[in-house]
């Protein structure tokens, strides 16, 4: 049985209430940090743990914290990014729904480490019911003296607020999130300055994912070195994976980052194999933005090594033959799934969610969506495939925020690995539509233009 650090008590009845959570060792990290550690000690501990940002980019959290500017007389803020909107990712939702106090506890410890006296949890608009779960947990924390003035007699003050977003994917980008939190239109800011220097209300700000902040709790409790022992190389600790797609047991799993992808997909402890005994076709290992992997690159890397569920191993081979761990949105496709249709669906999402600030992303995502729609619905041309590659290349790296990259990567990767399927859609449009949408006759077949 694998070790669980975050979801250990997730199935305990009533863990969402303060009493039960406290009985299972809750708020120990706050006690330990406030009484025995200085803020810098906590940062040091997180650095030692090798914890990496769980929101997708995988940037070392300790390093991010040490970049925080600390000018005299200027408040600092910690913002928790609970705007989990990446298609295929639902780990934060599970965590907040089941054990909201873990996040609250992590927020208190992390805020103490960063010297923030006001912190925010920015939650996506679609998680409206979790807002109440979190607010209840925060109220309980206030009532028991874990929040507010002079926490547990330590002299440290902290106010924690939950803020609900309006339902835009782009507000998960940290600067857009800050803009939205300030009450403005959620457009990403142009960097530099980075939030660590000028963030919320033009003050130094750290934005971290729900899972990252929750992971601070076991790190402070057991020590960073203990946490770093789990996992391989620079991928330390446990990671929540949202497994979905054609597998027997979809759900949220906490894994130690030392198991192989093959084990994760086929072991009964995790996904339990492909549904209905079908064959694996492809896998998106880290949420819709990361490149898709064809079946022969899922379990083995290009040079024959076993692919592990780690940041490094999944990225092995670069974008040519690798992918990214990303946010851990693990989507598995069986042999019947259509990659063209899937790519169109992803690109439709990005076209809808582009903020419209910068030209390559605003126009490019819409263009890719239209071309893919045509390809998928029987009106494609052979030149469309190269056009898509070219448009994706021109968006990538030329935009203000990473949404442009996130929209371009899945398209170029799908064509890189599944070009024959795209060509089949061009050559045999009727057969392709029949496979994806059922009976299509000569009469009902109407290619899109």
């Amino acid at each position, binding site marked *: 049985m694998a070790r669980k650090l975050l979801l250990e008590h997730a199935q305990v009845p009533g863990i969402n209430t303060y009493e039960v959570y406290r009985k299972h060792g809750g708020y120990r990290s706050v006690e330990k940090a406030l009484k025995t550690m200085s803020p810098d000690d906590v940062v040091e501990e997180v650095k030692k743990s090798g914890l990496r940002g769980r929101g997708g980019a995988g940037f070392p959290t300790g390093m991010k914290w040490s970049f925080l500017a600390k000018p005299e007389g200027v408040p600092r803020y910690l913002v928790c990014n609970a705007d989990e909107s990446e298609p295929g990712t639902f780990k934060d939702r599970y965590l907040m729904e089941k054990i909201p106090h873990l996040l609250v506890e992590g927020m208190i410890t992390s805020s103490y480490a960063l010297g923030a006296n006001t912190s925010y949890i920015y939650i996506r608009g679609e998680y409206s019911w979790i807002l109440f779960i979190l607010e209840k947990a925060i109220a309980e924390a206030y009532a028991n003296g874990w929040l507010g003035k002079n926490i547990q007699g330590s002299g440290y003050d902290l106010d924690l607020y939950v803020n609900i977003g309006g339902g835009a994917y782009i507000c998960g980008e940290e600067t857009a999130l800050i803009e939205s939190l300030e009450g403005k*239109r959620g457009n990403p800011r142009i960097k530099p300055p980075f939030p660590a220097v000028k963030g919320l209300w033009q003050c130094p700000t750290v934005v971290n994912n729900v899972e990252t902040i929750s992971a601070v709790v076991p790190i402070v409790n057991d020590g960073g070195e203990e946490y770093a022992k789990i996992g391989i190389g620079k991928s330390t600790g446990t990671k929540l994976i949202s497994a979905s797609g054609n597998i027997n047991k979809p759900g949220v799993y906490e894994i130690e980052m030392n198991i192989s992808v093959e084990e994760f997909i086929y072991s009964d402890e995790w996904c339990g194999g492909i549904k209905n005994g079908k064959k694996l076709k492809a896998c998106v290992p880290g949420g819709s933005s990361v490149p898709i992997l064809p079946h022969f690159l899922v379990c083995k890397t290009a040079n024959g090594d076993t692919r592990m569920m780690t940041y490094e191993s999944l990225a092995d081979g670069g974008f040519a033959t690798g992918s990214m761990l990303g946010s851990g949105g693990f989507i598995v496709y069986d042999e019947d799934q259509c990659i063209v249709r899937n790519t169109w669906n992803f690109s439709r999402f990005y076209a809808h969610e*582009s*903020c419209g600030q910068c*030209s*390559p992303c605003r*126009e490019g995502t819409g263009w890719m969506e239209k071309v893919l729609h045509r390809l998928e619905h029987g009106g494609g041309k052979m030149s469309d495939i190269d056009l898509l590659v070219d448009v994706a290349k*021109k968006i990538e790296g*030329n935009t203000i925020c990473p949404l442009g990259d996130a929209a371009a990567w899945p398209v170029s990767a799908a064509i890189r690995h599944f070009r024959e399927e795209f060509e089949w859609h061009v050559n045999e449009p009727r057969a392709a539509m029949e496979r994806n949408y059922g009976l299509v006759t000569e009469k009902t077949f109407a290619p899109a233009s």
Partner: protein
Amino acid sequence: MPKVTIDGQTIEVAEGTTILNAARQIGGELVPPAMCYYSTLKGSGGKCRTCLVRVTKGSEKDPRPMPKLVASCQTPVMDGMEVASKSDPSVVEARASVTEFLLINHPLDCPICDQAGECHLQDLAFEHGKAKTRYEFERRTFEKIDIGPYIKLHMTRCIMCFRCVFTAQQLCPERVHGIIHRGDHAEISTFIEKSIDSEFSGNVIDVCPVGALTDRTFRFKSRVWFLNPMDAHRECPTCSGKAVVWMYGGEIYRVTARKDKYGDVHDFICNTCRFEKKGKGDWTVEGPRDIDRHSVISQNHYEHGEKTVR
């Protein structure tokens, strides 16, 4: 003071100057095009991505090159920085692709557009665009909207540079101009088509790089290249009163603010000057205004000023 080298030319500029402004101080071919940056509007820039350049050497202290192309209007220069603008093929390619993106939803009907001849997108397309489009879908269109009695908004032509939004924010005390929706269906809006009641609202016409915001008192009266621009001034209680009057014969067809070489207005003018004072007696004409007529339409028509054929 930091020294920066752009396309092999070195210049010393004030601390905090952006690459674009350093390039403008050098002048000439290496100046990156800018569709959204506006020197007199705070916060503008960074959006259109036409001014992308490659930083081949970060600074004297940290000589690493920057991994991606950067928006030159937003990136401050560092001492010893080396920048490739037009000399780098990847920069030229990136600009060409941004031009393509800007044009996929922009109507290609310059002959019937009021902005033709002074349109920045026309210039950009002339320099970086291709003769044929690869876009085969229906273009995005909108109904024309009258913003008050003086300004016409035609969103179909808009390239979302946000300049007019910044103008409304920074010049007009009551902000009634903003953006609704997002992505490729985003729209400039004056929240539920409320007209802008500000003495300085007319300046959104001058800052618009394309024909999305035009002067209703001038629309389709003439073409800019038929008119003679003259520097003129008048005693105005609201603004500086320094403007350019565009004349044909003895008649004043329209009034605009004075734009610099890059199309940026430094002295914004009020609506009275712009829309209501069109009698010859209203203005003291100083003399012909030298305007950098670089647009495709004025090719070979104007000899003075900078050489026109690029």
